[in-house]
């Protein structure tokens, strides 16, 4: 069973539907026992970092997530990926889960081409980090396939854990991994067939 962590942030309908479409059993939950019983955990998230971090903390699930990631794969999506890092600089300085080393910073400050827009919204090609092509997350996804992004902040100083980036005048961190902890800045549940294949690979981990 794949557990989707429901901590009151965003709409989980599409994510649950996309995982169901793979034939996997899905449970949207905020119960520790469900995360413990699950084979895989999905950590979604939209909105602002501080608000999401506070809501996740309020559920009391943080220690559970921390323990479970020693035993089973977790995939953070979009803001859910950003929460995995040490620190975010979105409207202030906020502590993340610290499961992946690195920090989350405003995209606008770092773009080399000032004509590019923020939020970074749309389909961008996945550039898999050389040497990471054989990561099991990319079992069914090829280098250069397009995935859907919607975000204004991005993860940096995380090169050792970066599985893929997408070019937006700078390489924007697209997917990360630290042990069993995975994250994608893009939305696999909104990335058409490519996204479904990536979710399938995650479900098979």
């Amino acid at each position, binding site marked *: 069973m794949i557990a989707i962590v429901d901590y009151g942030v965003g709409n989980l309908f599409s994510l649950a539907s996309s995982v169901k479409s793979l034939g996997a059993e899905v449970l949207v939950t905020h119960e520790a026992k469900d995360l413990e019983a699950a084979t895989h955990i999905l950590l979604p998230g939209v909105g602002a970092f501080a608000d999401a971090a506070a809501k996740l903390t309020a559920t009391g699930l943080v220690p559970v997530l921390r323990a479970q990631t020693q035993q089973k794969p977790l995939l953070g999506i979009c803001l859910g990926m950003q929460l995995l890092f040490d620190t975010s600089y979105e409207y202030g300085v906020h502590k993340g889960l610290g499961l992946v080393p690195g920090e989350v910073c405003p995209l606008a400050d770092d773009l080399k081409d000032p004509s590019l827009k923020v939020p970074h919204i749309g389909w961008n090609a996945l550039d898999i980090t050389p040497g990471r092509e054989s990561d099991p997350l990319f079992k069914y996804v090829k280098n250069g396939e397009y995935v859907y992004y*919607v975000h204004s902040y991005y993860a940096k100083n995380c090169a050792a854990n970066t599985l893929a980036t997408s070019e937006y005048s700078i390489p924007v961190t697209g997917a990360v991994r630290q042990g069993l902890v995975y994250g994608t800045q893009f939305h696999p549940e909104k990335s058409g067939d490519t996204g479904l294949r990536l979710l399938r690979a995650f479900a098979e981990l």
Partner: protein
Amino acid sequence: MITKRIIPCLDVKNGRVVKGINFEGLKDMADPVEMARFYNAAGADELVFYDITASVEGRTLFTDILRRVAAEIFIPLTVGGGINTLEDFDRVLKCGADKVSVNSGAIKNPGLIPAAAQRYGDQCVVLSVDVKRVDGRFLVFAKGGRENTGIDALDWLEQGVKNGAGELVVNSIDTDGVKNGFDLELLDAVAKRCPVPIIASGGAGAPEHFIELFANHPGVDAGLAASIFHTKQVEIGALKRTLRDHGIEMRL
């Protein structure tokens, strides 16, 4: 690099897609779920659903359709029409919308965009506007283009972005339905003032119009159309291949 986007728009009334329906190869040409499936397979980058229903029954039917589409189409879905309150945002987001498009609702209630952006994030709030030239100025029209609000469209959009709109749909009443190309003058003017993604709407009649739009107007991010796609006058897969052949980045 990021691609330009091609977005079909489905106007839904009483559970059926209306406006320029002349599909071949579909069992039921006006069924929104079947059309969504068709466009998903054809390579649409995103879908816009516009609820033009007035009745309560129609609205219930619309949210039901939305839920069915969202359960099986895994590309971004934007929903508009009748969005006047945060409760309206909530209603369509719960049914699987990713982005919510406001138009008249933002004119009636200037607090709507800031409140929605704060609750759901800028990326969720799309400001859609119907614009028409009056005495050499671009003005905002409300009520489906019937009522001149007297509001300067460029000021309105700029303020909307400051208030938290993360994306703009710019529909030109002057070019809409004429099929003679997008309103490039208007779109350039908007792009100069608004640093968020811009979706061009109104006037697409042929692939050349999309080539001109994307090749020479870099401030525009996406092209939206309804009837030319519904009638298959322009086929999305072929259009995207043509655009790529012209050096425009496309997801194929």
